[in-house]
């Protein structure tokens, strides 16, 4: 059962915490592998990132908070 817990957690965490940031990331200025795959609008945690991506993360967390009520 711990394996299911950890597996579900890893996939949830990747979807909520990383997927959004990766799709909006731009690694062109960093020497990272697969940097050509990441051509999003935000190079760093800039003001634009806080306006757009952070806003979506906050909304997602709010929905997560009340989601359990409906499930």
């Amino acid at each position, binding site marked *: 059962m711990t394996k299911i817990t950890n597996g579900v957690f890893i996939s949830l965490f990747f979807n909520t*915490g990383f997927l959004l940031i990766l799709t909006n990331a731009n690694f062109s200025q960093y020497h990272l592998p697969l940097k050509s795959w990441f051509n999003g609008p935000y190079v760093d945690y800039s003001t634009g990132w806080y306006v757009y991506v*952070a806003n979506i993360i906050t909304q997602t967390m709010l929905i997560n908070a009340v989601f359990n009520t409906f499930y």
Partner: protein
Amino acid sequence: MGMDILAWFFRRIDQRWAATEEEIRRTTKATQVAQYVAKHAGEPYIVHFKLSMVFNIVFVTMLYGMGIPLLFPIGVFAGFIFWALERYCVAYTYQAPPSLDDRLTKNAVSVLSKAPVFYMVNGFWMLTNTQIFNGYVAPISQQGEHMETGHTVASSLGTNQAAPLFLMSVAVFVIIILEAYFKEHLVKWGFALSSNEIEVDENLPDFYLAVKLSDADWLV
């Protein structure tokens, strides 16, 4: 909770919206016991799925909490909703959960202890942003081109607002590495506390048989 309301709705349809207690007990469309039990037993308690949702909220809050402090009150709010709803549902709507040992709890402690690492590492990177904290700007040759951030690990090190986080991150990484690779040897050589567990078997019956009625009232 929504599923419970739905289950209640289907139960009431099965009872043909009977009004009195007697009618409710006697009315059903089920022709077999298994059908009746399936309708009235409630949802199974999927504790592992609930735990992973709690982990997710804690980790996302820790990952972006330094840059988005609003996530902390949202995390507390989510925790309260989980606590209140699970308490109600375990008492009144779910099937009796299976007798679980302490492995899930120990796993939760182990997983949640890694969350501060995300807080410190990502918090360090957020706090050393050159544009927000130092007003750094670099010229661009064409409109639409991305401005050089000037944000590198080398430029972030030093005495600044993120230095405490950096020092803590290094300390935590050293502890994790020591624990992962050297703990066994340190215990063997006598440089660490032994982790011998004393197994106590009090010969108690199952939880639901062992718990006193007054304790059960308090739990509910």
